[in-house]
């Protein structure tokens, strides 16, 4: 490991988050250095998506304590669009449908916000990046997520990520509901972004995607707390043993 890698990209300190008055995250501490990919694993309903939304700044997810520091800047109180401007990206688990919004137009608008692109350069990039995720041209003429299959929605999330070229991506169960081909496509796309200046947090239930992405660290989230952190081997252990043993450990 070189020195640059040890610089923190995202630092979450003692983060507590409430949704509709109920505390979901109960003091999360997490540090993701530049160039690292971390995975968050855990059973259903333990706060994985809450963590993803809280990082992106969803107004329904109220931060009651702690802070989110991104590249040395406190983002805890920033609006979602300001976080995006800083280089943060969230790939949604359930992307919302917005009728009448043309995908090409949308991609142009959002990629222009972070990258200084003229329409020609945009076209070039779109073709190049569209190839990475295997989409055909008609895909781009459709309306934003309208009538999309689960898999198509995930592909569009990843295409948005490639076009925006963020510094930090939170991928909220991007792998769920994907067939093996799509999973590979998406993993390739994420691996393409890998560099000393890109980090990611991959939220998932399964080891499957991690085989392709090879995260540097794995954290297990149970009942609003990170109960265990390990390397890639931890994912294998979880796959064979499940989460119960950790749960017991934790409650002791």
């Amino acid at each position, binding site marked *: 490991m070189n020195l640059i890698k040890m610089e923190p990209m995202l630092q979450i300190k003692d983060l507590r988050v409430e949704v509709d008055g109920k505390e979901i995250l109960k003091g999360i501490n997490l540090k993701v250095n530049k160039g690292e990919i971390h995975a968050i694993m855990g059973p259903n309903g333990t706060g994985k998506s809450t963590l993803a939304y809280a990082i*992106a*700044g*969803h*107004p*329904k997810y109220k931060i009651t304590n702690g802070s989110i520091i991104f590249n040395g800047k406190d983002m805890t109180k920033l*609006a*979602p*669009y300001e*976080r*995006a*401007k800083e280089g943060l*990206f*969230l790939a*949604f688990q359930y*992307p*919302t449908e*917005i*009728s*009448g*919004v*043309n995908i090409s137009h*949308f991609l142009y*608008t*959002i990629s222009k*916000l*972070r990258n200084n692109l003229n329409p020609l350069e945009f076209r070039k990039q779109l073709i190049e990046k569209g190839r990475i995720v295997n989409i055909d041209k008609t895909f781009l003429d459709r*309306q*934003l997520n309208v009538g999309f299959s689960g898999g198509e929605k995930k592909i569009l999330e990843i295409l*948005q990520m490639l076009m*925006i070229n963020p510094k930090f991506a939170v991928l909220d169960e991007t792998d769920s509901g994907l067939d093996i081909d799509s999973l590979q496509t998406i993993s390739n796309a994420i691996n393409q972004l890998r560099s000393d200046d890109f980090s990611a947090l991959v939220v998932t239930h399964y080891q499957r995607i991690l085989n392709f992405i090879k995260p540097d660290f794995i954290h297990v989230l149970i009942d609003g707390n990170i109960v265990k952190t390990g390397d890639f081997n931890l994912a294998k252990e979880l796959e064979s043993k499940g989460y119960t043993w950790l749960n017991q450990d934790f409650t002791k």
Partner: protein
Amino acid sequence: MKQQVLINENYKEKYGFADPEISVFKTGKGLNKSVVEAISNRKKEPEWMLKLRLKALEEFNKRSVPLWGGNLSDINFDEITYYFDPSDKKTQNWEELPDNIKKTFDKLGIPEAEKKFLGGVGAQYDSEVLYHKLREDLEKKGIIFLDTDTGLKEHEELFKKWFGKLVPYNDNKFAALNTACWSGGSFIYIPPGVKVDVPLQAYFRINAKNVGQFERTLIIADKNSEVTYIEGCSAPVYSSNSLHAAVVELVALEGAKIRYTTIQNWSNDVYNLVTKRAFAYKNASVEWLDANTGSRCTMKFPSVYMLEPGAKADILSIAFAGKDQHQDAGGKVLHFAPNTTSRIISKSISKDGGRTTYRGLVQVAKGATGVKTSTRCDALMLDEKSRSDTYPTMKIEEQDVNVSHEAFVGKVGEEQLFYMMSRGLKEEEAMAMIILGFISEFTRELPMEYALEFNRLMQINMEGAIG
């Protein structure tokens, strides 16, 4: 409060500025027999038209203001000037218009649009059409595109055959009012088989205070001809009321196709009460594209009477109502013949306490078998204060028909906004994109220049949508 000011300021700057009032002839306030006679006399009309006007005046006086629909109780008919002629000069050359008027139309971009992509333009200012011109090559094809007064003078027989046949003088109170004091509007005739591939446009500008504009439009598309007509309108921002009561009649003879597009952009003190009706004969098709923004209250329900087999109707309307505005709009399709098809799509947006109403009629007469008709109305409310209602009426007297109706009322969801904001869009940018998406079914039907202009107009309307 600040937001409201901003919207008015923006409208004011772009459309809502006023020229000093000039008139070479106007009638006194209020409406009576001598006013109607003065209008007719000034126009040197045939006797039958004066008689019709006077009959219509009686009808207007007899009927009360409708109690359904928008609240019209604030209209003071005695305070309105019913005829206001700003210039003696009617011309085919923009340069010959009085300076102020020329500047107004320049600012509204009409001469520029004419140069770029229009086949003909009529520009009405208060009661009279001051500029009117049809491209020479189109004139040579036998197309008639005149202001309605000239239409009556030069083509009386054709005029008389259809004028008031679709919308009789006693159809409703405001049709009666229009028939009594109509002035200006467009008269169009497309000869058999002629397809006009560039739009013809009319622009209606109200400038004087408390004035009524009563243009009358008649379009006759002969067998297998095609025409696209676009009308735009705007007015200065005053704090007193103006009245716009137009009548539009479209005749699509066998195999003909008419597309009639309205981009209404009245200032918020105009009452806009318009009767629009089309007859579609064998295999003819009529499309109404109707955008209603601005005005204090609009009541307008474009209709298509499908009189012979194979006729088609398409009504696509959108409405936007902000503070103190009520858009009571919709469409009517009447199937009187077998194998006729129709579609109504209505989209409405209300905000800041504005109110939108969809009012529609689907009628299928006995014997009109094989009819297909669908209606969809989508309403979007941007806050708790705003309101949206739907009044669909169906009169189906035939068994062998295919009728569908869908309605949706909703709000812009928090999840939609967050999704867009997480991509770097500010809340108002996200909102604007969602709204423009919502109305895109309409805008994508417009010529590109109009679509862009209309999206800008909607953005002006949307400014301050975020609390």
